[in-house]
């Protein structure tokens, strides 16, 4: 039975999962969830994801949610098959975890807030809080300065191989550079820019972009 991924392909968290599955060469069926009509808050969907968020997966009778838990599971399960996204030694795995945590705790909230205020709220006819956007942008600059320094010493964030830590950034950076119009944050940093060009040109990510069309 095919692995089913529930979520709209435009949303960042499902994209995180799709990118990982495509890197691993794992076949899946994408079941689109209509957020605009509130499908994710319906009782049926809440059985899959009790917080009413996307994505959720169903693999036979095995169900998971939270995109970063899903990618850890599949990257570990199929580590022999596709790209090794988690590292080989305990130390490498720890560094991948570290930079995944950095993405989740130091990076994601800032980008999420920026996109919410600059893109989502205006679309809903509400005014975004521009002071909040500026404050997040300032903090994000400092975070990306750390990335710039890190990427001067390491080809990718965790180590010299592309890992879940890099992959996890793809959806948010794409939103930042496109809909949020903050590409300068990436382009103005030589190493961050080369890293972004590298990871966003991977075939698996290009396939995710195609699914968006």
């Amino acid at each position: 039975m095919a692995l089913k991924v529930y979520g709209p392909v435009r949303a960042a968290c499902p994209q995180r999962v799709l990118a990982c599955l495509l890197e691993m060469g794992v076949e899946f069926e994408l079941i689109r969830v209509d957020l605009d009509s509130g499908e994710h808050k319906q009782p049926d969907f809440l059985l899959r994801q009790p917080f009413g968020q996307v994505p959720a997966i169903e693999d036979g009778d095995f169900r998971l949610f939270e995109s970063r838990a899903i990618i850890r599971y599949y990257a570990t399960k199929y580590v022999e098959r596709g790209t090794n996204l988690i590292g080989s030694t305990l130390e490498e795995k720890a560094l991948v975890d570290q930079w995944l945590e950095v993405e989740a705790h130091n990076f994601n909230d800032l980008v999420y807030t920026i996109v919410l205020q600059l893109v989502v709220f205006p679309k809903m006819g509400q005014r975004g809080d521009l002071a909040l956007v500026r404050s997040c942008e300032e903090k994000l600059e400092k975070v990306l300065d750390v990335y710039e320094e890190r990427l001067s010493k390491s080809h990718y964030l965790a180590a010299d191989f592309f890992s879940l830590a890099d992959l996890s950034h793809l959806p948010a950076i794409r939103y930042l550079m496109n809909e949020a119009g903050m590409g300068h944050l990436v382009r103005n940093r030589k190493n961050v820019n080369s890293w972004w060009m590298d990871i966003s040109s991977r075939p698996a990510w290009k396939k995710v972009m195609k699914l968006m069309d």
Partner: protein
Amino acid sequence: MKLHGSPISTAAQRALVALYEKELEFDFVVVDMSKGEHKSESFLSLNPFGQVPAFEDGDLKLFESRAVTQYIAHAYADTGTKLICRNEKQMAVVSVWMEVEAQQFNAPSTALAWELFYNPMLGIVTDPKAVEENEAKLAKVLDVYEARLAKSKYIGCDCFTLADLHHLPILQILMTTPVKAAFESRPNVSRWASEILSRPAWKKVVALRG
């Protein structure tokens, strides 16, 4: 093995409790945050984000408390409390609830800790609107926890794992504020919270805190 941090930092406490659960020998190097030591050049070489904790095991240097706990749990799997599951699918479910702590529980509970615990200590006025908003968010999260803990002894599976452990530092704080009612009014959540807060390893961290 060294852990650099402050005994009053919830993130440092998260790493400390894992080290105690695993009964590992380590040096706790206190970082004086009131003097800005976490922004000093030497500390920034351990954690470029200038945040505690930072961890060293031989040549390995790590930061981010939840990465430190995961490393400890895997590297020392056969020592002390087993904080992970060997079965891949069970571990995936534990991992889901570790993400739930980080993505759903952490933000509203940390906001409430600031409003109701830290700010009063710092002489900052509590914002009732922020308290109301975050209490509402936390209530929704705890409703999910209540349903989960009806089916599972601990949050990730039927044994104590990192998924439970990661909650301890903020949980401890919230139980000293009026927010404790939110935990105590939900029978399964209340049982779980009391159980994990009474673990000896956690009590050691609380004693260190003073």
